C-alpha cells in the first residue's frame, strides 16, 4: 500500500511541474524576439544586442511617482512686517519704563541668555549690597533708539523719589560707546557733570577693549561700580567740582582775536630790531663757520735731541693689520715688533 501511495505522489508531482514552470514564466519578463532584420542590423554593427535588451527593460520601467508637495498657505502682506533694528516694541517699552525696575538688570527683550543675565544680575546685586548707591542697567540692542517722547529723567525722578540714590545706565549691547548715564536727582546735585562724564568715559574705555558683547558689559559694569564708589563719597561729603578743562573751542573768540591783534601790533613795532637781530645772527653763524673752515693750526716747535741717528724723525706710531676681519683693531692695541707680527 505504501509503495502505491509513493508512486501516486511522484506521478502527481511530475504532472504538476510544467504547470508551476509556466506560472513562474508568466511572472518574469518575456524574452526578446529576434527577427531576421534585427540579426542583419546586429551583423552590420548598427545596434548591440545588450542595447535592445536594456532598452526593453527601460521602456517597461515606470517613472517614479512625483514627490508629495505640501500645500503651504499663501503669504499675506502682514507676514512681511519685520521690526526695524532701531525700534523698540511698545510692549517692551512699557516693561522698560512703565514702572520702577524690579531688578537691577532690565532686559525685557531677552537680549542675553538666562545664564548671562543671572551672572550680571548677581554682580549688580552684590554692588548694591556693598554700596549706598544702587546701580541699574537697562539693556538695549545695538542700534535701538529710545523714543524721544519718553522723558527718562522725569520718569526716574518719579520712580526713585524717596528711595536710595541710584545710577541708571542705558547700555546698548555691542555698542558700549552709546551708553547713557542717568542719576537720581539728589545724586545729580552732588556729582558734577565732569565727574559723570569721566565715569561714563572710563567705563566705555574698559568695555571697548573686550571683543564679546557680554564681556563688554562686564567690563563696563565693573568700572562703573568703581566710579560709583567715588560718587558715593561725593554724595556723602557734598559736591564734586567739575574738573574738565575748557576745550579750545570754548575759548572766547573775542579774546583770541584780541590776542592775535596784540601780537601783530607788537611784531609791527619790533619788526626792524627783530629782523636786524636775525640777520646779525645768521651772518655771525656763516662767518663763524667760514672762519672755522679756514682756521689754521700751529704747533710750537721744541728743540729735540735726535734719536737713533735719525735727523728728521724717530716717532714710531702704531701698526695695524687689515688682513682678516676676525682680528679687529681692539685686538691689535698692544703693539708688537714686526717680526713677531709676520710670524
Amino acid at each position, binding site marked *: 500500500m505504501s509503495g502505491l501511495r509513493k508512486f501516486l505522489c511522484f506521478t502527481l508531482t511530475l504532472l504538476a511541474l510544467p504547470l508551476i514552470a509556466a506560472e513562474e514564466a508568466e511572472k518574469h519578463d518575456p524574452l526578446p524576439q529576434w527577427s531576421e532584420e534585427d540579426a542583419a542590423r546586429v551583423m552590420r554593427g548598427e545596434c548591440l544586442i545588450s542595447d535592445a535588451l536594456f532598452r526593453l527593460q527601460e521602456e517597461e520601467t515606470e517613472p517614479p511617482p512625483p514627490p508629495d508637495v505640501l500645500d503651504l498657505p499663501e503669504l499675506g502682506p502682514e507676514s512681511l512686517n519685520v521690526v526695524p533694528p532701531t525700534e523698540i516694541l511698545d510692549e517692551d517699552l512699557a516693561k522698560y519704563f512703565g514702572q520702577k525696575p524690579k531688578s537691577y538688570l532690565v532686559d525685557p527683550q531677552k537680549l542675553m541668555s538666562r545664564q548671562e543675565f543671572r551672572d550680571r544680575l548677581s554682580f549688580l546685586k552684590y554692588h548694591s549690597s556693598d554700596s549706598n548707591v544702587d546701580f541699574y542697567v537697562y539693556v538695549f540692542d545695538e542700534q535701538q533708539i529710545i523714543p524721544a517722547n519718553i522723558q527718562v529723567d522725569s520718569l526716574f525722578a518719579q520712580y526713585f523719589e524717596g528711595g536710595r540714590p541710584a545710577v541708571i545706565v542705558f547700555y546698548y549691547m555691542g555698542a558700549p560707546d552709546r551708553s547713557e548715564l542717568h542719576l537720581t536727582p539728589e545724586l545729580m546735585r552732588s556729582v558734577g557733570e565732569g565727574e559723570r562724564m569721566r565715569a561714563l568715559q572710563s567705563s566705555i574705555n574698559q568695555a571697548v577693549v573686550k571683543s564679546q558683547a557680554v564681556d563688554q558689559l562686564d567690563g563696563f559694569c565693573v568700572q562703573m561700580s568703581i566710579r560709583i564708589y567715588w560718587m558715593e563719597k561725593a554724595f556723602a561729603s557734598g559736591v564734586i567740582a567739575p574738573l574738565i578743562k575748557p576745550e579750545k573751542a570754548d575759548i572766547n573768540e573775542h579774546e583770541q582775536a584780541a590776542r592775535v591783534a596784540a601780537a601783530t601790533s607788537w611784531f609791527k613795532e619790533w619788526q626792524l630790531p627783530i629782523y636786524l637781530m636775525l640777520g646779525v645772527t645768521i651772518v655771525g653763524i656763516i662767518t663763524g663757520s667760514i672762519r672755522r673752515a679756514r682756521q689754521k693750526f700751529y*704747533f710750537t716747535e721744541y728743540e729735540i735731541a735726535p734719536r737713533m741717528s*735719525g735727523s728728521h724723525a*724717530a716717532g714710531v706710531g702704531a701698526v695695524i693689520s687689515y688682513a682678516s676681519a676676525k682680528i679687529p683693531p681692539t685686538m691689535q692695541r698692544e*703693539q708688537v715688533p714686526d717680526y713677531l707680527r709676520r710670524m
Partner: protein
Amino acid sequence: MKCPRCVQKIHRGAEACPHCGFCLSIADAEFGSVEVIVRTLTDAAGLMRKAERSLVQEAIERFSKRFPQLFFAVYTGVFRESACLRQFGFWLLNRGAFEDVALHRPNAAGILLVMDVEGKAAGITYGYLLDPYLDEDDTFQCLSKAHPHWLDRRPDQGILALLKTLEKILKKKSRGARKDPKSFKRKVTPPQIGDLVKRVRSGPVKNASQKYDAATLAVSKEESK
C-alpha cells in the same frame, strides 16, 4: 718713544736702541743710504685707481692748508719678508725727499703712512716736531678708523677716514698747546737740574696758607733790612 724694530721704550737722545741696537745705519743697510725722491702720495704698489689717487691727493692738500707747518704723506709698497713697516717708515722719513712739499716744511714736520699691500698692514711714523703732540694711541685711533674701509678694499676711503681723525686730534692738540704749552714742553724737554735743586732746597709747599706765610716772611725780612 719706542724703537722701530723691537718696539721697546728708549731714552731721549739715544743714538741706538739699548735693547736691540737699531739705528738709522742699520735701516740704511736694509733700504739704501742715499736719499730717495718721493711724492706725498707714492702709490708704488699700484693700490689705488686714478680717481682714488686724486681724492687722496686733494685730502693731503687740504691737510697741508689746515696745518701750515706739517705735511702728510702716503707710501704703498710690497715689502720683503725681512723688511718691516716701522723701520721703513723711520728710514723713508729720514732719507726721503718729498718733491711736492715746500721747503719750509721739513721732514721733521711730516706724518707718513706706510701701507704694506702684500702683508696687509699699515703703520704711521712722524717727525720730531710732532713728538710732543702725537703718541702711539693717537696713531692707533687713526688707523682704527681706516681699518673697516681697508677690509672692504677701499684704500682711498680708509686714508680719508684716517686723515679726518688725524685732523681732529691735531686740532685738539694745537688748541691744548696754546692754552697750556708747558704740559707739552715737559714731554720732550728733560727737567732742568737747577730747578730740581731749587725745589729740593726750598722744600715742598703743602698748601696756600704756607705759601702765604713764606711770602709774608720774605716781605718782613726785606722791611727789616
